[in-house]
């Protein structure tokens, strides 16, 4: 066997190992979700059961956490998508000399540990509440509100990066063309810029929601007396707990698989559409040229 072949073999072996490392924990957890014992484990196998799935939905605390997480996710979307969009547009217009400073400030939340964002949000709004003499029912002390704010601090930076990437491909003369045709600035924004950014808006919304949904580090400080899915989960896992957590993971993985496949199919379809348009343009080109010929 040549050394080249040996190397190829080693590489394949490594790749298999790597993906095993990636998937074994999840597969084990998946199996634990169907194992008929009180403790989440795979061996010994005590028989197949589905009882952990209903148990999941019977857990009121968990359900409350999920509902809160969804509301927070929606709040974060509503806050971080417009902020990220504005920040990205400003980024493209800010004066060259200020650009580095501005960029450093707005991406800094990404490079900061989540716990710190949680803590700073908590102490800042707490102090603001004291300063305003607000009562304890007001939003300064609301776990949901603080969590939305705290998470949006860094999620806005993510959405901004998504918008920036898309804006780089934006042809500014389109805005000028629209203005020239009589559109107001607001019309240019809604009729030209937003449609162009639509895919980025959807990605940003998806990313914002999912990131919020699974955030723990920031949330654990800002949520205080309330709970989200992650804080409930963390509590349960630390307790040792039941296999219903594994059941939840199975559900999440299932949903993920379906959506990943759906996204892949949608992307392929989009590619096909673009190819078809190109072919059509090429055909039109040939006809045009044929038509121009006699004019010679």
């Amino acid at each position, binding site marked *: 066997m040549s050394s080249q072949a040996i*190397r190829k073999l080693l*590489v394949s072996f*490594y*790749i298999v190992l*790597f*993906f095993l*490392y*990636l*998937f074994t*924990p999840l597969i*084990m*957890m998946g199996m634990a979700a169907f194992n008929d014992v009180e403790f*989440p*484990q*795979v*061996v010994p196998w005590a028989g197949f059961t589905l009882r952990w799935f209903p148990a999941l939905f019977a857990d009121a605390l968990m359900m409350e956490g999920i509902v809160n997480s969804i509301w927070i996710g929606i709040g974060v979307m509503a806050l971080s998508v*417009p*902020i990220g969009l*504005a*920040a990205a547009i400003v980024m493209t*217009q800010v004066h060259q000399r200020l650009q*580095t400073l501005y*960029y450093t*400030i*707005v*991406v800094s939340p*990404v*490079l*900061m*540990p989540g*716990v*710190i*964002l949680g*803590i*700073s949000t908590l*102490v*800042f709004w707490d*102090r603001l509440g*004291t300063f305003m003499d607000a009562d304890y029912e007001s939003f300064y002390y609301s776990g949901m509100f603080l969590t939305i704010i705290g998470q*949006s*601090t860094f999620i*806005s930076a993510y959405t901004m*990066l998504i918008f920036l990437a898309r804006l780089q491909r934006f042809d500014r003369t389109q805005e000028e063309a629209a203005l020239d045709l009589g559109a107001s*600035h*607001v019309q*240019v924004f809604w009729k030209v810029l937003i449609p162009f950014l639509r895919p980025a808006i959807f990605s940003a919304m998806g990313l914002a929601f999912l990131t919020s949904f699974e955030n723990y*580090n920031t949330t*654990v400080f800002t949520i205080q007396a309330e709970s989200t899915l*992650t804080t409930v*989960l*963390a509590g349960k*896992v630390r307790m040792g707990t039941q296999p219903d*957590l*594994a059941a*939840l*993971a199975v559900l*999440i993985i299932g949903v*993920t*698989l379906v959506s*990943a496949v759906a996204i892949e199919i949608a992307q392929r379809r989009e590619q096909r559409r673009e190819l078809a348009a190109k072919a059509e343009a090429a055909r039109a080109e040939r006809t045009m040229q044929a038509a121009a010929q006699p004019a010679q």
Partner: protein
Amino acid sequence: MTGFFQRNGIAISTYLILAVVFWVVLMIVLPQAYMLDFSFRNNLPPAKIGGPEDVYTLSNYRYLVFGSPGSADAFNYLHLQVFLRTIIASIFVTLIDFALCYPIAYYIAQVAKGGFARSMILLLILPFWVNEILRAFSFRILFGTSGVINAVLQSLGIVDQPIDFLRADVALYAGLSYAYILLMVFPLYNAIESLDHNQIEAARDLGSPWWRIHWRVVMPHAKPGIASGCTLVFMLSAGALAAPQILGGPSSLWFTQIIYRWFNTGGNWPQGAAYAIVLLLACLVFVLAVMRLFKISLGEIAR
């Protein structure tokens, strides 16, 4: 400024400015600044805030280094040790992730073909849609005393007593490395992917051995990706809270856990804020060191 209004119109300009100012001032700058300020204050009940006792003090930082004034030890060995271990272990996790991910990133970026590479990327992303806490939980199933690995080891007769991986922190390091793989793979992949394959071919034609090609051609090109992956992994490991809570042994504390305690059971927020500032500084030092080491800018790291 007038140019800005002329270019965007009044309504849009107002939206842009309000959104950015709200974010930058009320969400980024002021909270950080206030946390810094807060870390130099005494722990007071709300009624006394603004009163004569509300003065600046170094006591919160002093506590991290020297412990409480009454204690017998010269230094706060417990907390300092935890801090150092957090930093060193995070660096260790970062290195492991780099070693694990570099070959995969290179393979997908330069060796694998179209559809196959795409499926591999999809496979890579898949596990990371599962919640961080559930991922840590899956490591408990794997590494617990009645977990899969112990069961396998025992049935093979390699050990007769189950090994307590959690107490030995093996589970924690494995879990942390696992948790941030994606954040290492993608920057690496993006950087390596932009390398023209012909450069590698050319080096190979010149008779360079494969390791030299990586050392002299691929890695220098992928520098921004390496820096960005390492920074992200380090920062997330050092700032991790869920994984240590779930996978750490009973005695092993992660620095974030101490912070968490100051805010929760400890009930001493200024003290917690001081610890948070120390953690933030450590991350900052790491980012600056990486920028120095790789001679790149912040913009290239955060992409």
